[in-house]
């Protein structure tokens, strides 16, 4: 009998601390599978964010560096400019990347920093108990938008891929979703491409993954997947925003 699916080597065999049904676990596995399949675990350095995945340095088998909240792209820059032949990825939540870390992601992208950013957009601050993120949808209720986000007071949610796509540094930007099998597979394809392009030194790559936070959404895991499909994707269209292979 052949193995159809099992824990990838790049993911260490310890329990994950995430809430039941949280898609952080899925994206972890996908990243690990790509490291396995491209055979790059040994040359990879991952940067952990501050957010629910703050300690994924325990989960990945490659070398890992934990970064200050929002600063993973700067830390990644420091690592990559020190070890230009390594593979460097950041793993960042939407609070981490789209709020406090805005300057760092914009400038890493603008510089065309040769790193891969795995961007987990669950439209909320998971770790600190469900505050509004820059990505929170209009009328979504959070602990800091208890009456629902409204455009007048809070502005409209930021679409990071679209914004970064105006820069010339990025080699590849795609938005994917983790809400069902088909999309999970597409997510993995996108990740694979991003890491491959990095190895080819093509520049900055980013994969945004629409994710869930069942706990702070107040929904069960399956309902959460449905929310992604029905509410999140309509605002955050899936697709490729930059592809250096298409343009060149």
């Amino acid at each position, binding site marked *: 009998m052949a*193995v159809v699916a099992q824990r990838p080597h790049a993911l260490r065999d310890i329990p994950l601390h*995430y809430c*039941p049904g949280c898609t952080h676990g899925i994206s972890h*596995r996908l990243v690990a599978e790509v490291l396995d399949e491209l055979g790059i675990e040994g040359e990879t350095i991952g940067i952990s964010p501050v957010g629910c995945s703050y300690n994924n340095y325990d989960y990945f088998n490659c070398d890992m560096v934990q970064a200050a909240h929002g600063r993973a792209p700067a830390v990644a820059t420091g690592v990559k400019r020190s070890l230009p032949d390594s593979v460097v990825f950041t793993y960042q939540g939407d609070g981490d990347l789209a709020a406090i870390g805005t300057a760092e992601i914009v400038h890493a992208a603008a510089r065309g920093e040769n790193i891969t950013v795995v961007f987990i957009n669950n439209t909320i601050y998971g770790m600190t108990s469900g505050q509004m993120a820059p990505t929170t949808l209009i009328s979504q209720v959070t602990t800091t938008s208890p009456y629902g986000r409204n455009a007048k007071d809070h502005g409209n949610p930021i679409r990071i891929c679209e914004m970064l796509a105006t820069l010339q540094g990025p080699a590849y930007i795609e938005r994917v979703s983790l809400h*069902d*099998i088909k999309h999970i597979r597409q997510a993995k394809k996108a990740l694979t491409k991003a890491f491959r392009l990095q190895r080819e030194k093509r520049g900055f790559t980013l994969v945004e993954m629409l994710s869930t936070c069942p706990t702070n959404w107040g929904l069960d895991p399956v309902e959460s997947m449905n929310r992604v499909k029905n509410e999140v994707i309509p605002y955050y269209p899936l697709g490729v925003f930059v592809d250096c292979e298409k343009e060149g």
Partner: protein
Amino acid sequence: MAKVTFFRERCKNCGLCISVCPKKIILADRESLNAKGYHPAHVLQMEKCIGCGFCATICPDCVITVEK
């Protein structure tokens, strides 16, 4: 025939595998609790499994190994 193995202590009974199984053969084991306090998922009629791997693809906790 396919074989699906659950690492039951790791299961958090999130229900995602249950929701994607095309054969609807995964269930939470209401009779037992793992140390974390969850009723772990398990397959009832293994013979119906087609080894599609959907359950493992969506499981956030690497609970499931699928062989075919």
